[in-house]
């Protein structure tokens, strides 16, 4: 049917899409919930085909893997805290529309600095002094890693996405170099648990959870109620407006990226001093990238991000446990998370847009 025939017959397309201006919070949440449910159903079918097990038992083992024992629950919340921490670190940059894809590298230099401090300064000062110094130096290292791309962005508008991505790989190479020089024959650095932060309650988990909850609240207030948070929001919405009302855009970009990188560095410190007590090239474990999604899914709101980071870690731990039991490959966790994320990303369409179907029976264009 060509255009003229279509006009003659007075038919309009089956549906057309319009932008929704406002949708109630409840409905938006309902759509997101449905998307997650759909993705879980979809993955259950996939896994049923692969493992030939009842999907209900599979899902049960997922919950068991995440919540089965007190220790698992501790790990679940501690891992959530770490991912939330990295997401919180990236959020101010994202609010400014600065795509900081370098969380991975910023965490890694933090970890590297922490390991180096333990190795070189460890025996020379007392433990509390060491921990304090390590925390400060790791934070500074992360800050520097965030500062470098931001200076170029502020001065010459250099593409930050690719700059920060490249900084990740430089960080990886630095860690590899460090391990080759100071590690053992296999290229690993022996853990140094004697320099770790002393354990509280049930191992190292408690500190992570409390510390990052505090950071979360501070970040919420900082972005929402502080002058600097307002400046970030204005620069993100429109740089021209920001300039017009007298905000020093370069200064805001650089300052925000230092905060972003420094927080990542602090998480890197936690991963070493309150975790492995050593450093590897996979210490950040891709969480620098996952955090981007967590932050975006949480609408850059620190409080929502608690939920989204919990969801991701729950899926990660649940699926990897299920994979072990049913002898599925560990990559199943990646696939599961990828599918759930894509479903959530896709469902935003139904929140932001409305599909208007053609009214049947009475065709006719306006």
């Amino acid at each position, binding site marked *: 049917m060509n255009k003229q025939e279509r006009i003659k017959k007075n038919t309009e397309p089956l549906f057309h*899409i*319009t*932008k929704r201006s406002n949708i109630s919070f409840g409905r938006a949440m309902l759509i997101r919930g449905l998307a997650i449910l759909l993705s879980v159903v979809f993955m259950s079918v996939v896994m049923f085909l692969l493992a030939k097990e009842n999907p209900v038992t599979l899902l049960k083992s997922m919950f068991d893997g995440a919540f089965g024992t007190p220790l698992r629950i501790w790990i679940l919340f501690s891992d959530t805290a770490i991912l939330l921490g990295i997401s919180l670190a990236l959020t101010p940059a994202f609010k400014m529309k600065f*795509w900081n*894809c370098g969380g991975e590298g910023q965490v890694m230099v933090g970890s590297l600095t922490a390991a180096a401090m333990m190795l070189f300064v460890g025996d020379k000062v007392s433990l509390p002094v060491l921990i304090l110094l390590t925390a400060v130096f790791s934070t500074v290292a992360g800050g520097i890693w965030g500062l470098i791309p931001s200076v*170029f962005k502020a001065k*010459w*508008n*250099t*593409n930050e*996405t*690719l*700059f920060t*991505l*490249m*900084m990740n*790989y*430089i960080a990886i*190479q*630095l860690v*590899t*170099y460090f391990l*080759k*020089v100071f590690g053992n024959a296999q290229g690993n650095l022996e853990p140094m648990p004697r320099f770790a932060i002393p354990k509280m309650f049930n191992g190292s988990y408690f500190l992570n959870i409390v510390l990052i909850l505090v950071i979360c609240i501070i970040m919420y207030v900082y972005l929402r109620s502080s002058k600097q948070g307002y400046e970030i929001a204005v620069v993100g919405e429109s740089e021209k407006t920001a300039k017009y009302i007298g905000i020093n855009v370069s200064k805001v970009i650089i300052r925000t990226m230092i905060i972003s990188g420094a927080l990542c560095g602090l998480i890197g410190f936690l991963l070493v001093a309150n975790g492995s007590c050593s450093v590897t090239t996979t210490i950040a474990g*891709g969480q620098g*990238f*996952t955090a*981007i*999604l967590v932050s*975006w899914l949480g609408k850059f709101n620190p409080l929502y991000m608690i939920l989204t980071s919990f969801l991701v870690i729950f899926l990660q731990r649940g699926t990897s446990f299920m994979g072990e039991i049913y002898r599925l*490959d*560990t*990559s*199943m*966790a*990646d*696939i*599961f*998370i*990828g*599918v759930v*994320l*894509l479903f959530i*990303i*896709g469902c*935003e*369409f139904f929140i*932001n*847009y409305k599909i208007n179907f053609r009214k049947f029976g009475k065709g006719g264009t306006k």
Partner: protein
Amino acid sequence: MAVITFLVSAIKFGMVLLFGSTGETITEKSGHLNLGLPGVMCVGTACGCIAEAMFFDMVGGRRGMEQLSFLAVLIPILATLAGGAIMGLIFSFFTVTLHANQNVTGLAMTTLGVGISDFMIASVDGYKFTAGAKFFNAHLPFADSMGQFGKLFFSYGIMVYLSIAVAIVTSFVLNKTKVGLHLRAVGENPATADAAGISVTKYRYLSTCIGCAVAGLGGLMFVMDYLNGNWEYVIDAIGWLCVALVIFTTWKPVFGIFCSIVFGAFYVTAEYVPGISLAGKEIFKMLPYLITIVVLVITSIKNKKENQPPASLGLPYFREER
């Protein structure tokens, strides 16, 4: 001669990157910044490798295998193209049809793609595809008789020449044909292109699928030719290098041939510098990333009109929103 060996190695690795960067350039010309490229390359490669393994399961050991060498190369290439295109289709469905944010979709695609490829490869014993690799490595018979010259120009498997051909064809289509003009219009200003009667949706879908299919070949070449059929879990890192290389090439595939050799050279330098320690090599491996940053900074400082990315790169297009 050490220099020739070095150059051969640099060219081989460079051409792996050239596939990826040409593919990403095709995609980016339509205004799509596909950060899912690492995932796409992983899936494409895994599809090709699995197809090769299945092919050898079916015909391996039989007589007349030599006559089938043509198929042993063609089948994995087709499988890779199909795998890459499917990933491209998923990406475009989200970014074009569902108007999703390109950065987050891309990153989720990377997670998904790496997972899928690991899963596929884990189903094959030993991660080895050496049986098929020798068909990819096969070079022209007269190369050995031509000394250093032959070694430098004719000692490669089919994929090296294919990558150069793809880059030249891409450049021709982009710059000299109507399709290319339309594609560039979509990438520069989709609203204007739409008003001129060009289907933004069609061009974005097609260019993304074709780009992803081509990019997958890079991974296939890396495993089959460069690594002689031994799978390594580094294809996603190569994917990121390709994304970076696109900037180095300033969105010009033919110039990309030269750029990718330079990139390849930096990547393999460490192996050829005499008297360097094992740890020192790691510092050398930073070079490609450092060079990318330098190029990134220089292009942004010079700010020349013809070296800029497509104007609407990374932005969604919705007709009713102007």
